[in-house]
């Protein structure tokens, strides 16, 4: 667990993290904080925009969209008109609810001033005089520490009227949500901030043009924003030199599941999956073997052993059929059932679907129903076709937002990589990972069991009247 802070220059995001007692304003300044924002205020907003554009910074919230380009869609004022009050908003997306993702929490609780400084830079660049931190309701500690940091920033004129003697004024508020995954989608987040039911909006218009209260709005992920002070302070060349790969900068990678050393690590963009899994997470716990992993949170495709040499940057992961997402590995071992894992993920998506569009509202619970049947040994071969069809019904272009396609990703890849497990559940009428279940049918895939296992299965079932070695195969 990388809870200790380090002054390694290649770990800009986490170098000042202290989870026990985050740096106060004075200590943060002494360590080198509020220097990036100082530099930013010396430039014009358009100059800062050019710096961020040229840095190659991409969004760390999952989609990987170039941050500077996103900002450039906001109608900008001409240089020299900075004092004109413009109704624009900057929102930090701290609604971290992607299962298997806990990187933003680390930054929020560990170094809250860094986010405040980052928001000042971003809001100044797009000309927003009001900014919100949209924080998930469960992060109580983060809320307290952020509020302390904001109060200190106000006391030291880094927020409020005429920041540091410049003509720029900005107010920053925290909005604590009340727990709903879809609020992480930027247009749903905007609806939530407006006090409406948090349903994603149709795009266009994009929030950059018409967002919060109908005004130009930029929504950026916490980790994305936290890069800004360091880019401004140290320059583009420094930022790009951090990573030898195609994507610039560093990224917080993490791993969870039954690995030896679950946690998170800030690394130059693009370590291989295997490096994160074995060198940092320590590999699997004793007695367990690696089966597969989701590379970037719950809504990414499974990758398996053959992919472990893949670099964890946006392009490389996409090339092997998944997404970098949030960079948080969720690791599946050989004693956990892949079907049960997908069922758990799908339950999450079904529960968190906002219910607006039919493919998602009805498709995700339908997939849960089918997966539950299979996991409980009551599946039919035809169910696999149904699941494949659902993957199609809920794919990109057929739904209102990205939630349902995100739910499809682990399912469709599990059907591909763990096909034998699905088949065994159906053919044997049980889950072999569940010790309380025994096979009701043994016919087709008997070859996959060892002789002794097969005998155990038969003897365990011999008391059941319904058992017959010749019982018909499921789905026929």
């Amino acid at each position: 667990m990388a809870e200790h802070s380090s002054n390694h220059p290649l770990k800009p995001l986490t170098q000042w993290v202290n989870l026990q007692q985050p740096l106060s304003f004075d200590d943060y300044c002494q360590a080198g904080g509020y220097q990036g924002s100082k530099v930013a205020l010396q430039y014009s907003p358009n100059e800062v925009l050019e710096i961020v554009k040229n840095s190659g910074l991409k969004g760390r919230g999952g989609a990987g969209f170039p941050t500077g380009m996103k900002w450039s869609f906001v109608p900008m004022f001409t240089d020299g008109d900075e004092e004109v009050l413009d109704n624009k908003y900057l929102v930090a997306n701290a609604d971290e609810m992607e299962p298997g993702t806990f990187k933003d929490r680390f930054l929020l609780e560990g170094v809250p001033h860094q986010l405040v400084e980052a928001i000042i830079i971003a809001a100044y660049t797009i000309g927003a005089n009001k900014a919100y931190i949209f924080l998930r309701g469960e992060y109580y500690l983060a809320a307290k520490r952020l509020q302390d940091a904001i109060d200190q920033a106000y006391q030291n004129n880094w927020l409020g009227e005429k920041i540091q003697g410049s003509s720029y004024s900005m107010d920053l508020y925290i909005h604590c949500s009340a727990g709903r995954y879809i609020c992480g989608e930027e247009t749903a987040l905007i609806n939530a901030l407006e006090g409406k039911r948090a349903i994603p909006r149709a795009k266009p218009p994009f929030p950059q043009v018409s967002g919060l209260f109908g005004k130009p709005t930029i929504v950026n992920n916490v980790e994305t924003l936290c890069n800004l002070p360091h880019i401004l302070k140290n320059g583009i060349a420094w930022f790009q030199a951090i990573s030898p790969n195609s994507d610039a900068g560093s990224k917080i990678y993490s791993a969870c599941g039954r690995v030896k050393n679950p946690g998170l690590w800030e690394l130059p963009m693009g370590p291989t999956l295997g490096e994160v899994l074995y060198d940092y997470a320590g590999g699997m716990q004793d007695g367990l073997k690696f089966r597969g992993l989701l590379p970037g949170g719950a809504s990414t495709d499974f990758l398996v052993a053959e992919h472990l040499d893949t670099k964890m940057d946006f392009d490389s992961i996409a090339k092997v059929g998944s997404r970098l997402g949030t960079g948080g590995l969720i690791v599946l071992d050989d004693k956990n059932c892949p079907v049960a894992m997908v069922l758990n993920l799908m339950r999450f998506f079904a529960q968190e679907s906002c219910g607006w569009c039919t493919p998602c509202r009805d498709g995700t619970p339908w997939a849960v129903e089918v997966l539950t049947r299979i996991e409980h040994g009551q599946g039919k071969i035809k169910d696999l076709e149904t699941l494949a069809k659902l993957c199609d019904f809920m794919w990109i272009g057929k739904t209102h937002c990205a939630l349902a396609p995100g739910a499809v990703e682990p399912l469709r890849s599990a059907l591909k990589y763990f096909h034998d497990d699905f088949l065994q559940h159906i053919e044997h009428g049980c889950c072999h990972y569940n010790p309380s279940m025994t096979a009701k049918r043994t016919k087709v895939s008997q070859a996959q069991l060892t002789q002794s296992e097969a005998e155990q299965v038969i003897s365990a079932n011999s008391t059941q009247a319904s058992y017959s070695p010749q019982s018909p195969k499921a789905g026929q």
Partner: protein
Amino acid sequence: MEKINTTVIDYQHYLTAPEIAAIEHEASIMETREAAGIEALKVVQAHRGWISDESLFAISDLLSVPIAQLEGVATFYNLIYRQPVGQYVIHLCDSIACHLTGADSVFVAIKQYLNIDYGQTTTDGKFTLLSNACLGGCDKAPVMMIGIEHYQHLSPESAVDILQQLAAKGEVNG
């Protein structure tokens, strides 16, 4: 024409001064009064434990938000309770990292100890058990949240220990 009876709750007679002050503060930092809706629900819930119909009507009156819209917001969120809950609401994470590391066995232990299932409250009104989407403690799974506390690295035994301590604490404080 037959008159339809509707319930009107005057916020001034229903909400307390501290509740109104807290809600008004939130409304003051947003551009519209309706934007304070979710915070208003949280304020009233913090004082009263849950959001009754009457509370909903009163907030609607205070913020001039249609009741239906406010109900749509209230029922949307996992942390707004539209039913009475116990003194301690247990949010047990059932998302993937906790699932892979044994949340099911923690659930079974809690269920047996309290003799309630998800969505239920103990007969003494002390505990309500709810599942929760990922709590962001995946490297310290399994986890649960009670009040504002997050409990990590749970085992069936440690989870029951925590509940026992809370139950004992509740008795002392009345």
